[in-house]
């Protein structure tokens, strides 16, 4: 492990402490705690799980059980931009599979790998984004894009590759 991120790491663990303080007395806290922890780190690092276990007095095995049950939690680092591509029925029958293929190709992801090597993008196929009338649909971070065609994918990704993200919001892809 490199230690150049030491100071940053400390700040993040301080944030974790304050989350844990907020939830000390709450019942049914584990899932919101994990959600907020993941917001800080982008995933659930082992050290953070140990810390949650120690402060909230929940066995690490139980936390691990919950974290691996839900699709939302990740035990490995994730990309800076999260692409949620809908694989729901409506998107499936309107060619969502081809959009997914185009994404994989554009990002250069091999089968079974969902995060790019440079940690820029993570591809997250999800069950349904609930914008079925606009199928096929994907979300990049919080921006929704509908009526997609495979050729739109590269253009959209390009916007997120640079630092600037001013071009926000769905752009209503050329239908």
């Amino acid at each position, binding site marked *: 492990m490199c230690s150049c991120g030491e100071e940053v790491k400390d700040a993040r663990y301080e944030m974790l402490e304050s989350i844990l303080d907020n939830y000390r007395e709450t019942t*049914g806290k584990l899932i919101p705690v994990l959600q907020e922890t993941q917001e800080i780190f982008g995933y659930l690092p082992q050290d953070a799980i140990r810390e949650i276990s120690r402060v909230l007095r929940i066995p690490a095995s139980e936390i691990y059980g*919950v974290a691996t049950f839900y699709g939302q939690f990740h035990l490995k680092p994730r990309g800076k931009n999260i692409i949620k591509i809908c694989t729901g029925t409506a998107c499936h029958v309107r060619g969502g599979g081809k959009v997914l293929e185009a994404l994989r190709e554009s990002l250069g992801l091999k089968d079974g790998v969902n995060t790019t090597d440079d940690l820029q993008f993570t591809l997250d196929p999800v069950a349904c984004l609930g914008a079925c009338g606009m199928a096929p649909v994907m979300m990049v971070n919080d921006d929704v894009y509908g009526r997609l065609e495979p050729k739109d994918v590269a253009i959209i990704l390009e916007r997120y590759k640079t630092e600037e993200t001013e071009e926000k919001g769905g752009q*209503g892809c050329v239908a």
Partner: protein
Amino acid sequence: MRSLNEQRMMVQKKQDEQDKRIKIVIGLGTCGIAAGGNKIWEAVESELALQGLQADMVSTGCIGMCYAEPIMEVFVPGEPRVIYGNLTPEQAIEVVDLHLGKSEICLDYAIAQDPRGFEPIPYIPDLFQTPFYEKQTKTVLGRCGMIDPDNIEDYIARDGYVALEKVLSTFGPIELIEEIKNSDLRGRGGGGFPTGRKWEAAYQSQSDKKYVVCNADEGDPGAFMDRSVLEGDPHSLLEGMAICGYAIGADEGYIYVRAEYPLAIKRLKKAISDAEAMGILGKNILDSGFDFTIHITAGAGAFVCGEETALLHSIEGKRGMPRVRPPYPAQSGLWGQPTNINNVETYANIASIVRRGAGWFASMGTENSKGSKVFALTGKVKRTGLAEVPIGISLREIVFDIAGGIQDNKQYKAVQIGGPSGGCIPESLLDTPVDYDSLLELGAMMGSGGLVVMDESTCMVDLARYFLTFTQEESCGKCTPCREGTKRMLEILQRICEGDGKPEDIDTLERLARVIKSTSLCGLGQSAPNPVLATLKYFRSEYEAHIYDKRCLAGVCKNLLLFKIDQEKCKGCTLCKNVCPVDAIKGERKKPHYIDEEKCIRCGTCISKCTFDAIYRG
């Protein structure tokens, strides 16, 4: 008890003032945003400033016409509301310049008008007489797309919280439950259990602490009516839950929303804090002595959490696995306390029932299924969107009249109703009335109301495989039939789609399906085989074609396709030959080419390159 009448009058006055000004409404539900609604907003905002035009800009939820998004409506005092659809930012600017600047309607982009109370504008269709609207009855969706969901005053001005006031001042819990029972409202989440009886059971359970839970974990792919209510009319859900709390004697409620709906969560949070600030939620509601607070729990991505006992485990912070019932949640639910669980659409019906009476509600629908139901129209139809219709209308009316039939002049093949747990319905059964019981007889189910329409280009075996992939991935793994059985079924379907199907596979699938249905622990497992059984029942010949003839007639299953070049159409341009990654295309320049079937990997690259439409799948 304090009444909201004074507020209502004040809000009304304020809104009457607003109605004297020009208003531009832009749909900014998730669908609207996906279609580019934000861009329209920005374009209109800057054009108004540029031209020095005065108009109020308001955002609203989904009005159900996803096919026409982005949508912009223009209200000019004294004139009908004009709805413009399928706009680009440039067109929106054109509309602003013409309609506001020159007082001319932009006929090119106007898709409908709402002439109620005004002299109609010629040449623009009346919204309520368009084929999409004509057969609809809006109860649950009545306010969606008409109000600003972030503004509690908009809700109050449109009969909002009237029902809660009525209940707190004039009803006892028993009377209230009786009223809900008389309406014959059945759960809109899928199972269709009578809501009044559910409430009664929770009411009868003795305990100091009870809970009201709303299932907003709309997991069925192809269904988005709950999202539309959460994003477009969040207060209607809060009102329904508070009324339920009063009926069963609960002072706390939880809304379990899936994490994929960030906008819904944001709007719900705002709605709850606004209602609390006005004393409509929280302690001593409207000085009646009734306390009710609502919390939001964001789901963490597990389809099985739509099952009620799994959902409760998830709120408690555990793995969302279902458990055996009884005891039912009405006896032992959240943290072991009596709990009532309904879904969003069910709660959203409650206030209207209380306000307009059980008789009004029961006057819609069929013998055993009353009221109206929202359907999500998706797939290969011309008009996608949300439609609320009286229960009992035929599927044909929904698919062909409201949704406008199949896109691109293709042939209808089937409609999948009820999500991955439902079934598909062929052309011959399209005249079936849509109600809970008729659909069950056909091997489908009402489910949450998602309708995915498929045309001739959908392979039904591939579709069954798709659904099984979904349920198999989402199986929580607790009980063996679901965990192992769906996996075995999926392997068989995989093999059939790849061209390795065996003659005995159909029998094996049917046997496995029967066992999984009858022995699984929860609804997910019990209904997982439905898509396979339904496709086997109505589209058996497609399975047989895959297994015996090694052919996929819809042209979807790659291994079963043969790519051919039409010798008449081919000009010998060599484009296809050059792009073929495995050199399977042979032929001389300017002479018809042909494909070597042995070498072809069926990638389809040649089809997309051919400019003469000479290559086809057969």
